[in-house]
């Protein structure tokens, strides 16, 4: 018998930290208390993507989309929606009554999205294999085992034109084919789930919301290349994703979908989890393999490529989570279906973690070819707090900034490269007028310096030198020659570094120099930070026409830099001021200005 209502509660990390677990249990308890436990099924799902509005609860079949729900709301949701069949309007996204069965897609955030990778996130219980199967899961592995030859699989991927979603965009079918034809008594399949880009959480959400899709894809690969063992290398910082993977693997073994003689085909295959330990460089494939082997994660020279000499010296396929999640869908629906989506250069969709100074932070999946403007304004709802758009950064510490003039660039691997950025793994960070571009470049450089493994000199020394120059500029000690020197060091790093971390580390500096030369000049020549972020380059001043002389600021100032008589405009002594900003926070009249 079916249930009258299905209640989907988001169980992604974002919503869980806003007590969605408590909401889940309260809903079950309330259904029990109000005697409707047999009419509703409460399901904890993966990420809905609309993290800004979390925690999210969706009730079917009406498709009611409840946002910012609190555990205390459970009673009303059950009493009103389930028992009386009336929506709780105050919790709906639009806060207004709507026609019954109105689609969730009417919410602007979802309109331009297309969910292939995230197809099951937010609609199935990731800890229940039956739900994955009911949604069409494990059909692809059946097809691969009983109807397709390994060459068929590779041809299907070739037709699909799937390119690696970790950032580099290498054709997946080629990787598989190289490994398939490589000589070796043993071969391995590896899933790269070491999502290290700060500000990106696509892979984590995919694993939390739909772990079986990755397991199924890795099994398909094993069958295709002739491997019997897979490894998932995942960050230890993702406990929920690890837990859901463990549950999924256990269930898959019970169902004969992992282990010996899968589905009676005679094919043996199993998967193991290996934990990362917080090293960004381990996203690089050779470093990742070193780490699985238990060593320091130092990149190795290529060739030999992992396809020939990978894990423990054996031929190995390494793909990232998002790439894997596409594969079962491609096998079931066909390569030409996938190829029909996107642009000529890049097929399919891409998932982005849209964050920063944007109204609707969240996880979005769009067809390749969607423009940045559509993502920032239509899906993201524009810049928060009525501020002005400044730039959007893609590709994390390896990428670059994109400005207003390039917002209409269709997103694909080639398009982003042309404008000086890159696809990267999918971090998309929006900046507004308050963000200092030099400071942001310094932030990324600090990150790569911190994460450099130290093996080769151009990266180790070059990164540190670039960082020092940027530090100098933000301190107001910049000189004319600094810009030339940045270009020289950057070039040395690009040419001389062994792995992509060092080669791409200068990108955030170079691209911000390219698009915001005036901002660098303001720091260097005028010793001013136009956005007011660099403390050494700003001064706090009191606007005498707004100051009423309440003395609140002078009492709060920790160094006694503010003086003046009661009820008369005060003054800040710039020589004493430490620019802590307490006065500005304290003033109720907006009299304290940054210059």
């Amino acid at each position, binding site marked *: 018998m079916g249930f009258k209502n299905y209640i989907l509660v988001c169980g992604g990390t974002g919503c869980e930290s806003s007590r969605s677990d408590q909401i889940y249990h309260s809903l079950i308890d309330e259904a029990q208390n109000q005697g409707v436990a047999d009419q509703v099924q409460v399901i904890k799902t993966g990420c809905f993507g609309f993290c800004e509005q979390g925690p999210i609860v969706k009730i079917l079949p009406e498709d009611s989309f409840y946002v910012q729900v609190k555990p205390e709301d459970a009673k009303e949701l059950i009493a009103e929606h389930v028992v009386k069949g009336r929506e709780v309007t105050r919790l709906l996204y639009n806060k207004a009554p709507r026609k019954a069965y109105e689609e969730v897609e009417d919410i602007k955030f979802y309109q331009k999205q297309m969910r292939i990778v995230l197809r099951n996130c937010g609609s199935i219980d990731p800890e229940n294999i039956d739900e994955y199967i009911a949604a069409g899961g494990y059909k692809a592995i059946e097809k691969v085992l009983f109807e397709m030859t390994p060459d068929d699989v590779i041809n299907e991927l070739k037709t699909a034109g799937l390119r690696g979603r970790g950032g580099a965009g290498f054709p997946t079918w080629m990787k598989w084919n190289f490994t398939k034809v490589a000589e070796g008594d043993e071969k391995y399949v590896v899933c790269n789930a070491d999502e290290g880009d700060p*500000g990106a959480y696509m892979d984590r959400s995919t694993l939390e919301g739909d772990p079986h899709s990755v397991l199924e894809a890795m099994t398909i690969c094993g069958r295709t290349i002739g491997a019997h063992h897979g490894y998932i290398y995942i960050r230890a*910082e993702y406990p929920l994703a690890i837990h859901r993977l463990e549950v999924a693997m256990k269930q898959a073994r019970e169902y004969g979908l992992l282990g010996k003689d899968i589905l009676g085909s005679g094919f043996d295959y199993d998967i193991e989890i290996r934990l*990362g*330990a917080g090293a960004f460089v381990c996203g690089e494939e050779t470093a990742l393999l070193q780490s699985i082997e*238990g060593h320091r994660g130092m990149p190795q020279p290529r060739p030999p490529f992992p396809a020939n000499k990978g894990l423990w010296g054996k031929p190995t396929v390494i793909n990232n989570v998002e790439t894997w999640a596409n594969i079962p869908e491609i096998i079931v629906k066909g390569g030409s279906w996938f190829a029909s989506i996107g642009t000529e250069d890049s097929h399919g969709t891409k998932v982005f973690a849209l964050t920063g100074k944007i109204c609707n932070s*969240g996880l979005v999946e769009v067809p390749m070819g969607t423009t940045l403007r559509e993502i920032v304004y239509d899906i993201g709802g524009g810049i928060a707090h009525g501020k002005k758009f400044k730039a959007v950064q893609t590709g994390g510490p390896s990428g670059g900034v994109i400005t207003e003039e390039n917002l209409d660039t269709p997103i694909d691997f080639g398009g982003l490269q042309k404008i000086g950025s890159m696809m990267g793994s999918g971090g998309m960070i929006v900046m507004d007028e308050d963000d200092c571009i030099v400071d942001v470049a310094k932030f990324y450089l600090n990150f790569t310096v911190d994460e450099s493994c130290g093996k080769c000199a151009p990266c180790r020394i070059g990164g540190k030198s670039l960082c020092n120059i940027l530090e100098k500029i933000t301190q107001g000690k910049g000189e004319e020659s600094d810009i030339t020197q940045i270009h020289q060091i950057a070039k040395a790093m690009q040419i001389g570094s062994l792995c992509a971390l060092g080669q791409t580390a200068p990108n955030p500096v170079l691209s911000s120099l390219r698009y915001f030369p005036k901002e660098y000049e303001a720091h260097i020549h005028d010793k001013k930070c136009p956005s007011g972020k660099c403390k050494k380059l700003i001064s706090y001043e009191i606007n005498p026409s707004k100051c009423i002389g309440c003395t609140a600021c002078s009492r709060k100032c920790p160094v006694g830099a503010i003086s003046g008589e009661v009820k008369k405009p005060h003054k800040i002594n710039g020589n004493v001021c430490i620019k802590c900003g307490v006065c500005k*926070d304290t003033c109720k009249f907006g009299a304290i200005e940054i210059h």
Partner: protein
Amino acid sequence: MAQSIFSDELNAYLAEWKDKPGNLIMILHRVQEEFGYVSREAADEVSRQLGIPLATIWGVLTFYHFFKLNKPGKYNIQVCLGTACYLKGGDIIIDELGKELGLTVGGLTEDGKFSLEAVRCVGCCGLAPVMTISGEVFGKVTKNQIAGILDKFA
């Protein structure tokens, strides 16, 4: 023979993983789970049981950010400095916590109660800026909320 400083469960885990290739990082994770950090003594014990030189173990421990070599406070405070949190003022939160507790990043209060750590992306970018105290997540934190949040752990 001196008694092992490891619990029976931990020793069992070591025995299970002893002969698996690439076991070192997994074992160090398990050690840190038990003690909250990996002490010199614990590293010695792992070295002895696995027959891996201490220098190799120390090399791995110091390479990866996740491994802690010092005992964290009763409440470990992690402030996210991923890009989204940084843009939304993660550094201001660190400064404020530092002032309240008299700590710098990586430090421990004298009473051993709080330790302060800067981390890369806890994965709740929609809630930026984010901090966690012993696993409890606080999102959209402002400077003025810090004292109140710390009081909860007094």
